[in-house]
């Protein structure tokens, strides 16, 4: 039973999963589980993934900045 709100959340999660630092098996686990999760849990997962990707982007940009200045 996947409502339209969950559908959108699942789509976002599927796009974010490859960007996360998690390994392939964990990605597979979430991909299988996602359709069964509640809106609340999907939202938490999506938020965690977004924050992780943002955090990693910041680190990456900082490193690039340092490289340019040195």
């Amino acid at each position, binding site marked *: *039973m996947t409502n339209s709100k969950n559908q959108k959340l699942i789509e976002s999660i599927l796009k974010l*999963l*490859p*960007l*996360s*630092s*998690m*390994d*392939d*098996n*964990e*990605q597979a*686990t*979430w991909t299988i*589980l996602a359709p*069964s*999760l*509640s*809106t*609340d*849990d999907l939202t*938490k*997962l999506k938020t*965690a*993934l977004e*924050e*992780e*990707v943002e*955090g*990693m*982007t910041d*680190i*990456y940009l*900082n*490193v690039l900045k*340092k*490289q340019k200045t040195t």
Partner: protein
Amino acid sequence: MPGALDIFKGGFDLLSSVGKSSPSASGEKGIAGQILDLVNPLSKDGKETAELREKFRNIRTGVFGEAIKTLLLSKAPSLAAGLDIGMAATGNMTAEVVPWQHEFEIISSLLLLPLPEGFKHMLTDIFANSEAFQTVIANFPLLDDEIKQGVKDREPNAVIKALRFIHQLVIVDGKVGFDAIKGLFSGNPADLLKIGAVGGGLLAGKKLLDSSSEKSNSGGGIMNTLKETFSGAGAEKGKKLSDLIKSSADSRETTMQGNLIKLLKELNVFESAELVKGKWANNNDEVTIAFVYNQKKYFLIFDDDVTKTDLTIKAENGTQLADFSDWGNFDTRDTADKIRQALK
């Protein structure tokens, strides 16, 4: 929910590692993971990236624990009951959302153990025999069909599982909003809260024992609250007839109930009609329906008996305006015409 996290951490690790045949040097992949591997040597000895990975891995483990618990509860309530017993035994209980949360969860999980059926029936029949409870269960979102059927068949374990399910999703997690189920109680969410709260109290053994003495003293208490909630007296009062009919979609109407609906529609008062006395779901019962016609309030008394059906229309002050003894012999349209004449 730290307790649940601890329990599920092992499972999550296991699931994540299944089929892990050729782990990469870092044990992680993904585009971002690869970028992190590239920038690692350049960023504070890799400490920053390692911390980030660890932080979000822990968050995901937390989400996994919560999600699995909800899934277990919906798909395998007996396993979830075992989890409650396990958490109580290890002292890993979380903070209570409501004061009786742990009491309810532990006692109800213990009740799912193979206890004598008679003992369980004593506890669960109060719910199983209630039409209000049956209606909620029959229409409750996310509830497994097997449990629904079990409640219909008055199986004690199914009733306990259903109560645990409602308790978890409505009271504890708030995953099922009142909006989704308010129609079952004609829009009064307080009634559903009573099921969760009273159910919690009932299944908590101590309160049940307390209630035995209260029952004999007739001094109120949980048994009286239960009776009031589930006996039907007051459960449907003041509720729109159209809502009551929608909520009891599974049960068939009698022919005369169907005729009454037609009559109310014919008079264009069906949507505003409210049940003020009696129970709609019961056949062979007397019900009083209030309706507004030409901006005036009237009462329709519908006395449905096995042998005949009487219909009476009264004004707000109690004056009888129309009487259709043995209404089964009347045509609905004719009756509506006669009522219109009487209400002029």
